[in-house]
């Protein structure tokens, strides 16, 4: 094989730069898996540093090192002014990346105090952007990659070869499970540590797939159509034949959610604590799992909902329909927030990017179309051989498409057009039912007809994780704390809109609202006043009282009419135009003596 490969090398093949000089590696494909060190808590680091700084005041230093201080006695003041360890300058590009946009222009304000306050705040914001840019240095990990020599295609490299090349820990991440109750659907936790398997024929298993430690394995004795982890690895929901059930990590049934009937797909919105479900009958349902209340549930009138994904950018739910349309839903609006005609034919599979920027869909006509969700514009369109029945996009923009028992992976195919697959994998467990990338790992999980396989896809996962958000190494205590904090920071369901930054905007009445208000003004009625004059020991109704009442009513009516005339709707005009009557004065006999208007065409000489 070596010889073959060498022979294959074309004459001009050396043009591509060699990354390794080591001869022993020349023949092997260049594979690097993500290296992962245990990252201590960032906060902890800074804290210790601060402590260190606080620990020794100048006095102590003087005591401990008298001679040194004598030398530098004059320098001390200097050092205060100009710290030796200056934070390095941040590149403007990086700053731009973390920039929060233009600040407040305070010039128009008179108050000096206010101006200074705003300036202080702007300084802090600037500091935070700088810090964020500077902290990029803490993201020490680089993503893995797979590179070929010359014209050899990376897609021809098999898992075996990869496993040979990578380290032991990475190698253990490739495994296969042969199971009988398939086809299987899978779900990884958000930190990528735990895996959930659900066979159609009722087999449900949860385990820590890195250490391969089984948490629970049960058979629910019913169809399992979909399953999802909830906010922690302690709970998961399964969509079964009739209803949705919630189990704990030991496989004990905690809840049976009867509001969710005949569910085909489940999604869990972690920040909103919402379990969304799409049913066979076209119902869409959101359940707040923190309080056990259904937030919203309605009929979409779009038929059977077989494709569902969540948009992490704004918390909307995306549904794929047989009309080639992808719809975005919020629990607060009973109509789709947006409808995008992504395909010319029925949608066969759909996936969103973990950052919520892109959506990939595949139609019957073998086209994979990638759309930008935020701009609602198409970005790429590919024609593939075969119709992928399952799609998944990784954190670093790798697209996996499962068709039959073959999974094809495309790298860098979203923002720039790709030419061919990055990798190809043939699943031994027959037809692929679901593919899903494991977050923060270079791993793709494949749920198939006869089991599960986990394969290595170098460069698919994000190498640097934020331990505050998703820490794969988190302890029990950390998990508990995170749970409490997450509950405290629960995002209300009303904030699910297309623009997640709408919360930072001021609620101004739209043009439509203004128009409606003005229309209402046209049909306003004068207020009814019910006036009962005081009766000063007088008997009978009294004509005078009735008169007063009448007068007051008429007055009120006049006032009202005046008010209405004053606030004439300026957004509405008569069809015939707003012609002002020309006859301000009534025509008189003496008009003939007035100067006649000159004709325009005459030329004065």
């Amino acid at each position, binding site marked *: 094989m070596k010889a073959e490969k060498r022979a294959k090398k074309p004459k001009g093949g050396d043009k591509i730069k060699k990354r390794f000089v080591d001869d022993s590696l020349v023949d092997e494909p260049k594979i690097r898996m993500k290296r992962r060190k245990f990252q201590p808590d960032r906060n902890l680091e800074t804290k210790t540093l601060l402590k260190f700084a606080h620990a020794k005041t100048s006095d102590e230093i003087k005591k401990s090192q008298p001679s040194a201080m004598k030398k530098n006695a004059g320098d001390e003041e200097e050092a205060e002014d100009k710290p030796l360890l200056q934070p390095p300058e941040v590149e403007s590009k990086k700053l731009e990346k973390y920039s929060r946009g233009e600040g407040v222009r305070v010039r128009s304000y008179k108050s000096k105090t206010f101006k200074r306050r705003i300036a*202080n705040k702007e300084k802090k914001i600037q500091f935070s952007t700088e810090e964020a840019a500077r902290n990029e240095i803490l993201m020490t990990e680089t993503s893995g990659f797979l590179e070929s020599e010359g014209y050899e295609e990376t897609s021809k490299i098999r898992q075996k070869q990869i496993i040979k090349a990578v380290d032991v820990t990475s190698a253990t991440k490739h495994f296969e499970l042969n199971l009988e109750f398939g086809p299987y659907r899978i779900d990884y936790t958000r930190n990528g540590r735990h895996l959930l398997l659900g066979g159609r024929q009722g087999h449900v298993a949860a385990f820590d797939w890195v250490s391969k430690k089984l948490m629970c394995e049960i058979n629910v004795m019913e169809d399992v159509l979909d399953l999802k982890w909830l906010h922690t690895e302690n709970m998961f929901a399964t969509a079964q034949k009739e209803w949705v059930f919630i189990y704990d990590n030991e496989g004990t049934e905690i809840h049976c959610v009867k509001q969710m009937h005949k569910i085909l797909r489940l999604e869990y919105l972690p920040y909103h604590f919402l379990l969304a479900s799409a049913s066979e009958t076209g119902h869409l349902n959101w359940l707040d799992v923190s309080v056990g209340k259904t937030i919203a549930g309605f009929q979409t009138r779009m038929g059977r909902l077989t494709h569902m994904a969540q948009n992490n950018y704004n918390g909307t739910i995306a549904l794929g329909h047989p009309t080639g349309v992808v719809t975005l839903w919020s629990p607060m609006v009973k109509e789709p*927030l947006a409808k995008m005609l992504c395909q010319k034919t029925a949608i066969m599979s759909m996936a969103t990017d973990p950052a919520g920027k892109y959506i990939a869909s595949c139609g019957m006509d073998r086209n994979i179309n990638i759309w930008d969700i935020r701009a609602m514009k198409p970005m790429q369109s590919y024609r593939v051989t075969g119709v992928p029945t399952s799609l998944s996009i990784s954190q670093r923009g790798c697209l996996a498409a499962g068709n039959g028992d073959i999974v094809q992976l495309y790298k860098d195919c979203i923002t720039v057009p790709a030419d*061919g697959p990055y990798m190809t994998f043939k699943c031994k467990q027959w037809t692929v039912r679901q593919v899903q990338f494991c977050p923060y790992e270079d791993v793709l999980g494949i749920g198939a007809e006869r089991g599960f396989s986990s394969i290595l896809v170098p460069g698919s996962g994000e190498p640097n994780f934020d331990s505050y958000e998703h820490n794969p190494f988190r302890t029990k205590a950390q998990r508990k704390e995170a749970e409490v904090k997450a509950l405290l920071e629960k995002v209300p369901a009303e904030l699910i809109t297309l623009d997640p930054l709408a919360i930072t905007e001021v609620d101004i009445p739209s043009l439509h609202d203004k128009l409606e208000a003005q229309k209402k003004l046209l049909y306003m009625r004068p207020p009814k006043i019910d006036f009962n004059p005081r009766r000063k020991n007088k008997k009978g109704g009294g004509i005078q009282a009735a008169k007063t009442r009448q007068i007051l009513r008429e007055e009120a009516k006049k006032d009202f009419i005046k008010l209405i005339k004053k606030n004439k709707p300026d957004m509405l005009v008569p069809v015939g135009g707003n012609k002002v009557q020309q006859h301000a004065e009534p025509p008189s006999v003496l008009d003939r003596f007035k100067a006649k208007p000159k004709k325009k065409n005459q030329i004065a000489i």
Partner: protein
Amino acid sequence: MLDFSCSCSTPSSSSNTCSQSLGYYNSWHFQHSLVHFHFDLTMELDQERISDDSDGENDARSHSQLVSAITKIDFGNKFDGALRKDPANASEFDQLKSKKTKKAKKDLTIKALKSAKTISLRQNQSQKKISTVAKPQEKIFVEKLKRSEGYIKVTNELSKWDNVVESNRVADQLEFPAFNKDLKVHETNIMTSITAPKTELEKKVYSMLEQNGYIAPKEEEPQVNTNQLTLEETMTKRRELADLKRKTNQYQRKVSLQNKIKSRNYRRIKRKDKMRQQIKEFESLKDKHPEEALKMLEAIDKTRVQERASLRHKNTGHWAKNQQIRAKYNKDIREVLAQQIQLSRELSQKVKRPDEESTDEGESEDEGAAAPHPDLDWEKEKQNPESGADVASFVSGYKKFWEEKNQKSAAKAKSDKEEMPEQPEAEENSASQEKLCVDVEEDEHLELMEDLLEVRKNQKEFEKNELGKNLRRKANVESVSKKEKKVKRQKKSAAAGSGSWLESEISVTDLFDKLEQKQEEAIEMSLKRLRSQVKEMENKEKDEEEADAPSNKKKKKKKGKNKSSKNEPKDVFGLKSLRQTEREVSKSSIENPITEGTDKQSSNVEKNDVLNSKVFKAAPNRFENIDPTKFLDPKPLKSSQGELVVIGGEDLDADPISQDQKAMLAELFADDDVIDDFQKEKQELNEASKPKEVDLTLPGWGEWGGSNLPVSTRKRKKFILKPKVELPRKDRNLRNVIIYEGKDSGINQHQVSELPYPFTSVKEFEASIRAPIGRNWVPETAHKKMIAPKIVTRAGQKIEPMTIDVLLKEAKEEEKMKIKTKPK
């Protein structure tokens, strides 16, 4: 009898005067009324003063007499009124007399008599001061005054604290009890400065850190000689310097502002001032230095002439104004005016000296300014016709020079043509031409592409420039010739011997013509050459593109100038792509009548656009060249099936859909045209969301025929209201997208609906809350800083109110800071 006492309110002065005068004058004096006495007082006093010095002995005697007389005086039931008529202060109780007051008054008078001298002095003073005492202010006003004074006092007192209070208000964090500022927190730099690297490893690390700029390299601190100036001196010096700087800055600003004043009036006044100044100077000079004065006169005259010759007085003179008025009625005058305009136009044409024609345009501006000079010369000439000969000689010299130059250039052109037929002649384009040639030799595709683009651009510019230049040149030539003709006429009239004029004129114009022709030829040549080269290059490029490998394409893509084409999925790069994009742009602009239509609409549309952009803030620019109204052409992806055989799914490589299947599918989906359906739906929604007309017609109202008749046009025009504004949909530019426009999701519950106090615009308030502060979004350090409490107190410690010491401290600290931040 008389009464010397006075009212309580005016005790001393009046009583004294009375008593004193008694000593010198007879009693009949006192029989006058008191008022009368009072009026006479001043005169008497003067006399008294005189007598006072002269008879001292008399004085003593009379004094004792007076005293005895007074004691004898019978204070009967006499009217005891106030001397001074002050109705405000006159008390009703004064009308009556009491025994007590009597006695007191007696004592007073005695006392007063004893100290007569001093009293007289005092009286003098008082008399000088006031004849009548001013009426005291009313109580209300007095209190008002007091209050206002008090207010000023208190504000002054309190304003001392202003700075402290403001700084406290602004401060991010206040610590109570007040933070002891003598304590310091040292940063890590202290540690690094103390621990000098000892081991080799440490040294290495330090050197590395130094190299990378994490540690400032240790430098020997330059010894500042601080002994020369004391602190105060340096401070004062600094202050002075700062003051000076401020003043100079101010002056500069003022001057620059003055220079910018565009007011005609101001300028005129200034000019006149200047003139006056000059005349003054001239007059002063006239006596001292007559020669210099003459020079000055000339200079003044010259400026005046220049002024008159400039275009400023084209139509501001008396004559011009009169003509303008008359022109309405008189045809001849109109002609005259037209001529005048023509003339001014000719004059305002930029005159180009022929020897500068080949140089840049930038210089031509100067020439324009110098345009009127030749005219001036002619005028001078008119005055002294003897200079005609000089002119002739000058012209002949000019001619010679031009002939020589012409010959030279011709020879050069010839040689150039012989040597290198492709070498461009036109100097302007030579640079780009050379570049082009070099590129052709190098034969590098990518650079060629870029250069090609550049060259094309250059070519266009060049053409434009040349066209403009030619036009201008022609105009110049014409104007010059006209001027010359004019001169000729003048000459003839002057009948000065200058026969060479005609010849010279012809030769000069000929010269210009020739030059022009030549240059035109050259331009044409170069243009032709350029065109052919461009064509060649295009052909080449096409060939290469066809033969190109994908890797090469990538390279091209990287180098491509057009950024937008970078991310386009299709293989449109370089020149081709440019053209295509252009076409696309034009197409899209044609195909999007909606956007064009909305352009006309009011600002509401713009607002909505802004709204749109807000929703899609993240819309990346790079995809703009993708037409959102169309489906992309799918790019076929290579499949690497190899030995893989698909089980359970479709075979990847086998023809995915067989003929039968195709037919079946076609049958199945025969009637659902997805795109059309979608468009129809969108159209319907669009119609539905259009604002509807409001019908305010009342059936039967104003009609004779009853209510079942159709509404008359008059009523329709008046009573059916239509919305003035159009409400553009968010998805109007996105063909395959429908965006929901109905009610919000209830996010408005969480939004701010009223602007908080100091903010005046929504935009600014939004900017103020744009940045998140949570630890999920910002680094921990920043988060801590942002959520730091405004006030920090320590448990169990008293918080004392601020004392005046704070002010002193602040002042001290400020000074300290000033010293610290002195510039090096």
